[in-house]
């Protein structure tokens, strides 16, 4: 697991409560990677691409992305990340959102999202889902960032 310690988790989620619940449950799954939380798309994109400690300039990362953001759609962020020539195009993106619309799901996968998870309303299911995501995060391989 030591190898994965360096992988930072970037969580883009406008709802503080959801963010807190997600973090709690990821921690309960035993994941101790650093989690950076952003509540809007603009600062998140700025961090992803431009911050010196951000993933584009500094090491591998894994992105948890909500689609409903106040300033832009999560799919816009997804497009930016997965765009041709983006340094983060191989970075795994987990879309974690309340939307379970078929069209939306298809669109996200078309845009290059790696995993799409619908937040269950029922908290038991929600907690279970996040914990399983945590377990999943602990085993996936994240590619190195190419300059």
């Amino acid at each position, binding site marked *: 697991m030591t190898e994965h310690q360096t992988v930072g988790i970037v969580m883009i989620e406008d*709802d503080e*409560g*959801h963010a807190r*619940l997600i973090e*709690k449950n990821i921690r309960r799954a035993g994941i101790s990677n650093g989690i950076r939380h952003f509540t809007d798309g603009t600062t998140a994109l700025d961090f992803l691409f431009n911050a010196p400690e951000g993933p584009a300039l500094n090491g591998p990362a894994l992105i948890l992305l909500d689609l*409903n953001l106040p300033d832009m759609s999560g799919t816009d962020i997804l497009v930016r990340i997965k765009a041709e020539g983006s340094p983060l195009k191989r970075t795994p993106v987990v879309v974690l959102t*309340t*939307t379970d*619309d078929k069209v939306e799901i298809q669109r996200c996968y078309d845009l290059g999202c790696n995993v799409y998870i619908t*937040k269950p*309303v*029922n*908290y*038991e299911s*929600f*907690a279970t889902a996040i914990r399983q995501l945590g377990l999943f995060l602990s085993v996936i391989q994240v590619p190195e960032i190419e300059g």
Partner: protein
Amino acid sequence: MPGTRTKLVMDNRPIGRVLMACMILGFASLVATGVAAAWLTGRNQEHTRWVNHTYEVELAIANASIAIEQGETPRRGYLITRAPAYLETYRANRARQPEILAKVSRLTADNPRQRANYAMLVALVGNLQRQRDLTIGLVQQGRGREAIARFFTETAAQRMMKIRAVATRMADEERRLLKIRDAEQTRSVRAFYLVLALAGLILLVVAILSLTTVMRYTRDLTRSRDSLNTLNETLEAQVVERTADLSLANDEIQRFAYIVSHDLRSPLVNVMGFTAELAATIAPLEDLLERAEATAPEIVSEDARLAVREDLPEAVSFIRTSTQKMDRLINAILKLSREGRRVITPERLDIAELVGTIRASMQHIIDDRGATVSVEGSIPGIVSDRVAIEQILSNLIENATKYLQPGRSGVITVSGHEARGRVHLAVADNGRGIDPRDHSRVFDLFRRSGAQDQPGEGIGLAHVRALAYRLGGTIDLASELGKGATFRLNLPKILNTQDPKA
């Protein structure tokens, strides 16, 4: 919204009445003409008869004159020659005279003037005859000379002249009458031509009037037909336009419902999530309380005990049940909105078969509730969306088995008929019925009617109605409390696949 409403202006002028009046007038003038012609023919015949009569009278007078004149010749012959042949001729002529005179009398019987003339004529002829007979008698007696002397002295020639004058007068009288009759005839003919001209004029006017009326009517008809054609031609475009507008509005509502339900869900996740977190904290608190009670009961206040053991679990439980209910409601809205977005695929459906499938799938529920489901009569085929129809029917049948009248086993019948391109389906039950006040309300989301003794959120019928609308249909309900309910579904026989979303 474009699409000018073309209004059909129906001309309400009493065209029929005008035409009828024209026809009556036309026929009346024709009848008048006919009557006039008949009258004229009668007059003509009468006139002809009178003309003939005149000629007859003239002829009779002429005959009489001739006979009288002719009587003179054998008399004179006999006076001179005393040949018996002359006597015979004379006698024959004399014998003929009364008959000839009687004819004149008969023919002129109607005219007092002629009667007077005739009387004069008869008197003259009588005198003449007497003189003639006298001379003839003298000759026969051998008194020839006396007879001839008598002949010289007698006034036969004058009498003859008088007779001729009377005859001429009689003929003149007849001619005068003929002239009067001719004038009358001319007047009649003139009157006839007048009537004819008048009738012709009326007919002409009537013809022109009828023709213009008919032409105007035809023109109006043509105009109406043209506007109707235009309307027909644009109707399809209008329908397409309206349908597009409608589905746009529908899309808007669907999107709204979706966004609302979706965005409501997000905070709900937090409420439920943190309630669960809160609930999870009760256990360690409880633990702590127990340990405190065991080791140092004096620090445990009654309030703390109540808070941990009663208030906290109670609050969490209420929050949970409420949020769960809210979650169900939001899910219902989501389901409805998603149903609206589902792609409709029309196919040929056998409703009876479909009911059979539904009955089989909920057989245990039907049996548990003590009901029977049957199809009544034959149900016309329909082209529609299988899933939607199945959901509608199963919802209605499930409802029917759910709200039974206590003490009465449920009898549920599905029937259908076809009318003007629509299929009418009815799901009837003998259950507890629905208060007429609630008939439209029960189709609203989250609204229910009657005793709330059955589980449910008030979603089923709202879903049914949304589906019916989606299939281009309508649904309504006939029911009285305690007397069962009939849900009537009106669907297009063939679902229009040109639905923009389909």
